[in-house]
């Protein structure tokens, strides 16, 4: 592998004298505290995730469960029939959260059938209404997914209207992505680290926003501010507890990247621990949606876009005109030289981490406010792909490149279904762009061509 970027830690001893395990324990402790403390509060507030008839899957009694949801909402009162060996036959009805469950007592081949006559008007099954599967291990809950979508959701709208609507959502998505990817790009620029846990920071913003606004009933504006402050704090804690000590130890960049992957994994399952497979969306009492030509929007759409533009402009101004912004750009460019000219590199990096996580948190809150399908515990997976595509498209390490890249990716992702991409494959369009880009112009649109290998 060709030698990559490293940030030399000038001015401090390269190896810490303390060889005991206490620093390790402290790192772990800080990380876990930063992750788990707010969510522990959820335990006291919200009911634990699943209220199903079939709670415990054990070796004697297994569970077959599922959730029926369209791309818009959950679907209650749908009947599902499960048939199994020895004439086993049971029906279940989805509750008001779209969940159904059936208890079984023996492993074997089962068939689950969705009764389409019980689907509400305008909703159809996407694919087969019958599923055959086998349960081999009773202690493992078997989850079956029926694809369901609103039947006529795109037929009555003309093509040009769909294009205009998609452009609007594309710009909206692009602005939200830009908030998060500017942070990602800055982290890469100043430390050389590709932070695979950044998308989980965005999800954290969304989850905390839901907690604060929906569960605790705080005013949404105040809620946004609180969430952003808290997410910035997690960034501070991460740099203080994990990244700075690791930089001082001289840990290689590839190893740090794997650490971010481990962190992303831990965070994802922490979210799943608290909300299971629910979808989290901040629901407010909105005024009736307005229309501008073919575009349907409501106040929060506009608010989210305005907030994004203002914040991005503020970040841009800070980078260009303030001293600390110049210092950040200097560190991005050449950390050794920046340090030699008297800039405190550690302080700049700490600030970058705080800003990046705060921006990601803001992006997450706005995402769960305006994006229809809300946020799940694994939303980070999709968002990460889009973030990396945006950052690479714009140029790794340049903040403005991240903005340009995000807008383009947002537009592409929202326009892909209009061009014919089915369902989740619209995210594949971002990947295709990424691969093509890496073949043709790996430094991105605004990046500088560097010789690598």
């Amino acid at each position, binding site marked *: *592998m060709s030698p990559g970027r490293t940030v030399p830690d000038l001015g401090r001893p390269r190896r810490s004298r303390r060889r005991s395990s206490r620093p390790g324990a402290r790192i772990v402790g800080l990380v876990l505290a930063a992750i788990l403390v707010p969510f522990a509060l959820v335990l006291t507030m919200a009911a634990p995730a699943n209220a199903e008839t079939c709670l415990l899957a054990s070796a004697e009694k297994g569970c077959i469960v599922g959730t029926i949801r369209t791309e818009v909402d959950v679907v209650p009162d749908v009947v599902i029939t499960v048939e199994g060996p020895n004439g086993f036959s049971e029906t279940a009805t989805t509750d008001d959260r779209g969940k159904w469950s059936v208890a079984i007592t023996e492993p074997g081949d089962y068939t689950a059938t969705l009764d389409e006559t019980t689907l509400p008007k305008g909703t159809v099954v996407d694919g087969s209404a019958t599923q055959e599967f*086998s349960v081999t291990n009773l202690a493992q809950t078997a989850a079956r997914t029926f694809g369901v979508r609103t039947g006529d959701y795109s037929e009555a709208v003309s093509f040009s209207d769909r294009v205009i609507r998609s452009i609007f959502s594309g710009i909206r998505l692009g602005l939200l992505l830009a908030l998060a990817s500017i942070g990602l790009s800055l982290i890469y620029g100043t430390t050389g680290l590709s932070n695979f846990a950044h998308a989980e920071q965005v999800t954290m913003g969304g989850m905390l926003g839901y907690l604060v606004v929906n569960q605790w009933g705080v005013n949404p504006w105040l809620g946004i501010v609180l969430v952003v402050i808290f997410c910035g704090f997690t960034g501070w804690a991460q740099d203080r507890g994990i990244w700075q000590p690791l930089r001082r130890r001289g840990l*290689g960049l590839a190893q740090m990247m*794997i650490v971010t992957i*481990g962190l992303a994994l831990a965070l994802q399952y922490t979210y799943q621990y608290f909300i299971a497979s629910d979808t989290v969306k901040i629901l407010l009492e909105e005024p009736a949606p307005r229309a501008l030509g073919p575009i349907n929007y409501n106040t929060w759409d506009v608010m989210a876009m305005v907030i994004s533009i203002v914040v991005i402009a503020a970040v841009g101004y800070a980078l260009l005109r303030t001293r600390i912004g110049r210092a950040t750009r200097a560190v991005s460019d050449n950390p050794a030289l920046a340090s030699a000219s008297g800039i405190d590199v550690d302080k700049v990096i700490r600030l970058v981490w705080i800003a990046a996580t705060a921006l990601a948190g803001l992006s997450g809150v706005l995402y769960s406010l305006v994006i229809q399908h809300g946020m799940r515990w694994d939303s980070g997976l999709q968002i990460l792909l889009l973030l990396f595509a945006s950052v690479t498209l714009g140029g790794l390490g340049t903040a403005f490149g991240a903005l340009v890249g995000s807008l383009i990716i947002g537009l592409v992702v929202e326009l892909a279904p209009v061009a014919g991409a089915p369902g989740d494959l619209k995210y594949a369009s971002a990947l295709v762009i*990424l*691969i093509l880009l890496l073949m043709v112009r790996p430094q991105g649109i605004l990046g500088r061509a560097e010789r690598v*290998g």
Partner: protein
Amino acid sequence: MSTISESIPTPDQTQGGDVQAGVFDPNDPEGPPPERRVFLAVTIFVVYFAVVLILGKYAPGTVGTIARGMLRESISAQTAAVAIAIIGLNIHFGYTGLLNMGQAGFMMLGAYGFSISIWHGLPMVVGIVMGLLAAFVFALILGVPTLKLRGDYLAIVTISAAEILRYIGRLARLEDFTGAAQGIPGSQYREPFVGLSFFGNGTFDLGGWLPTLQSTGVNGWWVRFVAWLLVAICCVLVWLLVRSPWGRLLRGIREDEDAIRSLGKNVFAIKMQALIIGGLFGALGGIVYILPSSMQPDAMGRSLTFFCWTALLLGGAATVFGPVMGAVLFFALRIFIQGASDALVPNSIMNTAQTAQFAWICVGVALMLLVIFRPQGILGDKRELRFNV
């Protein structure tokens, strides 16, 4: 960043203790002698299985249940399948230094190629070839744009490509071809494999020591036997590959690409070969993974890739037995954590689903701690695992 003049020690300077970290020493490439590593691996295996077997047979109550669960999981065909995939990942990362974050994508392609071919009537051999061919093409598509660039890019592209494969597998439109989100039930592709069994019907449990399983059946001794036999064959293959001149080139590329390039070798081609070969192992792992159960795209997502990484780092990257040990210990530990939390923590605090998630959180934290404090894992050699992207 080491310069070439520092990298090549002269023969009379070289002793084990003088070798600088991160420097490829042609006289001592493996670190501690392989015999010691084999001895360590065998000892750990023997001790582990002895403990689990004895506890499973004689210990009462929860301890016995957990031990039996661990034993069952340790010898299951899916653990073997993941071990094969990790062997592939070991070639990518342990020996060549490629950051492949999409090994589950290779597994999924092998599994889909196999199951779809047999489902649509082709013979089993053709199914295996299709699975391997799909992984080959996938490796080409991902490698060509990224292997000339910094390692981050391969990581980004593979992590995304594996997700996209999963989306494609789930597409309702392709249901007749791939079975969409519910996948392909095992009965559609298992028959040719089961038909090869010479174990007969009936059950076997070695007088109560081993779990009582069918001799052939769906998830019985036949599939486990074949799976672990394949693991042994793959270990031998890797050992031969790594001992060869090509294997030395891989390790050289891991340590310092520019030095190898200056020797006139085509670094891009070699990295591509490593990516493909590791991907083929991954595809084989995917085929074995679905044999005892069913083909489900959701079961082969990002989590599976991360298990492979954690298990690889746990066992010891850049060793022959490391992947196998990592796979066995990893799955057993997960069962242990889950069983222990289930038994010790009351359901009002943590219900069963949450215990499973808690075990995964531990996996994530374990990965972080492993990489920070012991990147060489149990069997690895620290000098081989200093790496910079």
